[in-house]
């Protein structure tokens, strides 16, 4: 028998995931038109790998295929990974990363809704640790023609030197190791910089932000996490930059580089592995920004969002437990 309520809002997990995919479209358009069109191929590869991996595990687990495959959650993971990975990553590496996310991180923990870690971020970290060389080849925007890009993705010869480039974050990081180098001198000497960050790449940031606004407007995400993440990142980078602008990049650079915008609206906002209470969300997202900045500025990797997310995923139960909102009628009670 069905009990009350007998009516339901026409909401579905599929609808939520579809909204996230729609929100990624502006960034995909910018990516494909300004940076590397091959990202579309990568998205297709990642989607196929995700659905195949999901189907395989579901079969092994003896679960019905249709509901899980059609909820689009695997596709979201796949798209996020395809956008995180370098566009010229060989197809098998993209597929491997996606399979790590879907099989190991999502399904080994019990499937949708059960994973304590953000699947895309675990896969990203695993790949960067396992294939550091492949994972750090970022072509400059428009550097390679589509045929070359496709050749690299589908397994053509990799002349590393010819395509070896670095992200803006990486360039600054390595550049600063040279004696006498300043942020300004590095950005001035390297032709791959645009207005605030990597040329071409920097346009991804507003595109992600646009998608984020759409998610906010649709009520899929709340303002807490993006605001806390971007606010904290801007605050800490501004603090260092104001003290020593020669050796610390500007807040604008930090917000427009790497995974900051993607992270703010699409990664830290993952509901399954993130904090859930309003205060918890603020703490969670701000902490990720702080850890990410520390890794970016003082750690071994040029980008730290992924590691920071995982680190804070571990803290989620603790954060949630200690930030439970006060209940109607109990406002005077001692906070738990």
């Amino acid at each position: 028998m069905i009990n009350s309520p007998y009516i339901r809002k026409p909401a579905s997990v599929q609808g939520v995931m579809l909204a996230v995919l729609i929100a990624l479209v502006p960034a995909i358009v910018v990516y494909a038109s300004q940076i590397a069109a091959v990202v579309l191929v990568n998205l297709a590869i990642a989607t196929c790998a995700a659905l195949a991996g999901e189907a395989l595990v579901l079969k092994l687990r003896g679960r019905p295929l249709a509901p899980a495959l059609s909820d689009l959650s695997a596709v979201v993971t796949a798209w996020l990974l395809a956008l995180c990975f370098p566009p010229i990553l060989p197809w098998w590496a993209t597929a491997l990363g996606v399979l790590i996310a879907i099989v190991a991180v999502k399904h080994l923990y019990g499937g949708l809704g059960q994973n304590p870690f953000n699947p895309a971020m675990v896969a990203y970290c695993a790949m960067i640790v396992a294939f550091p060389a492949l994972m750090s080849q970022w072509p400059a925007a428009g550097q390679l023609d589509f045929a070359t890009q496709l050749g690299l993705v589908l397994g053509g010869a990799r002349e590393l030197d010819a395509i070896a480039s670095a992200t803006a974050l990486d360039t600054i990081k390595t550049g600063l190791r040279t004696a006498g180098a300043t942020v300004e001198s590095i950005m001035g000497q390297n032709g791959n910089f645009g207005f605030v960050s990597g040329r071409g790449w920097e346009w991804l940031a507003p595109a992600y932000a646009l998608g984020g606004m759409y998610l906010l407007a649709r009520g899929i995400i709340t303002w807490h996490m993006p605001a806390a993440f971007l606010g904290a990142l801007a605050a800490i980078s501004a603090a260092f930059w104001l003290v020593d602008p020669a050796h610390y990049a500007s807040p604008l650079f930090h917000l427009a580089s790497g995974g900051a915008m993607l992270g703010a609206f699409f990664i830290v906002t993952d509901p399954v592995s993130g904090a859930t209470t309003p205060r918890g969300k603020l703490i969670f997202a701000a902490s990720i920004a702080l850890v990410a900045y520390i890794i970016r500025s003082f750690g071994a990797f040029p980008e730290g969002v992924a590691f920071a997310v995982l680190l804070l995923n571990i803290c989620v139960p603790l954060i949630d437990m200690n930030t439970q909102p006060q209940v109607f009628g109990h406002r005077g009670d001692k906070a738990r």
Partner: protein
Amino acid sequence: MITRLFGFKGGVKPESHKNESSGTPIQKAPMPKRLVIPLRQSIRSTARCLVQPGQKVLKGEHIGEGEGGLGTSVHASTSGTVVEIAPYPMAHASGLETLSVVIEPDGEDRWIDHTPLDLPTVSREEALAWLRGCGIVGMGGAGFPTHVKVGGGRGIETLVINGAECEPWITCDDRLMRERAPEVLSGAMILRELIGAKQVLVGVEDNKPEAIAAMQAAASTLGDGIAVVPVPTLYPAGGEKQLIRVLTGVEIPQGKLGTDFGVQCFNVGTAHAVHRAICFGEPLVSRVVTLTGNVARPGNYEVLLGTQVAELLELAGPKADTDRYIMGGPMMGTELQSLSVPVTKGTNCVISASPALFPPPPPELPCIRCGACARACPAELQPFELYWFSRAKNFGKAQEYHLFDCIECGCCAFVCPSRIPLVDYYRFAKGEIWARERERQASDQARERFEFRNFRQEREKEEKAAKLAAKAAETRAKIADTGEPAPAPTEAEDPKKALIAAALARAKQQQAAVTPRNTEDLSADVQAEIADIDARRDKLNQQDADKAP
């Protein structure tokens, strides 16, 4: 009077579906063929039956005497003959049966003599007893006796009259306010008098402009202390705690009464019933019920209490594809297990449901912790946490996260993108916790009984020993007194024997008092067995002792 409105967090906006039934005036339902009047009309209390099968009754005649603090009187809804007193199913999710008086109407609908109560001439206690005698209970659904609520205390600042009617589809309060606004407000003024409130705030959701206009017109003649306040349409604004919050800003925690916070809240239907009871002396024998949903003639009907739903539904004409009936609204109502259930004081609506109007929910998916439920929860709970805890049967944790603050309004399940029947999980958890509590109480009682039995047996043994010792001492004293040898050889042995017995008993008594018994650490079962054996042994000793002389 200008009222500042407060908000409550959460809430949802389901499609209201009020227009289906709100357009036509309240009609009097025709006399049913028979009435099944449950003796359980107020919460947690069943009235004592006062009539016999075969007895003739008049409309408004007392047929059930309320028992206990929450009891209220039950009356015959029309004149006729009592044909049966038997358990009949009630409108409840469990399909529980309750003792009911079945009346065959004579069609005359003849009232018993009734006179109004002249309120200024009677004491407050008398007025409360009058309400109790008229069977007035909350008509919003819970059936809480009005005299108990009114009697809760004086010094109330605000009387809130609940005309929010936030559940979709239901329009009985809407029609009542449109058509009988002066009567409703008259009842409100009586309630105000009884609780000594300074102001009366009538909250009506702003999707009922006609009702607001009618009520405001009626209120304008009543002076300053009363205001009809449109409140934003947001389910569950008609929840008692939510409406009090919206109108006064006061938050009443779970388990607390409004009285403690200077607020008291009554439904408009209750106020109307109070008016009829005081100004006409009429007990509560009928109410307005909305018939709507998948029916040919939706509308509101003035229905005699005890009218069976099946008979009532004929008035509205359910369409062919109706597959079930919901009593109450679609957010918190219950699906009827049987159409023989009667209309009671809390029945506000019967909805004919069809798969087209109320499609079965799509399959449930796992919770993705999206938090939509938390944003919708008017109690500001974290419903998904409660779901995880309930599902894992981690009831302690569920309680710690305020499971019992959940009002089961259904907002969380309404918005859940995974379509998890969340409220079912909370009902399950609450039921389990109550069951465990009862079990614990039962086992506590059993343990206490067992411990007392042991204590009693121990005490009886000691008393017996003491008696024996006293007897021996007496014998000794006798010997000492006489100081002469026994006259007969058989008697010569007796004092000696008595002395020995006395010494033995003394020693045993001392031992029992001083040394711990090595049986004390054993399990309850073994101890019981030992106690049994001891009892048998004592009995044998006693027999021996009896035989000895």
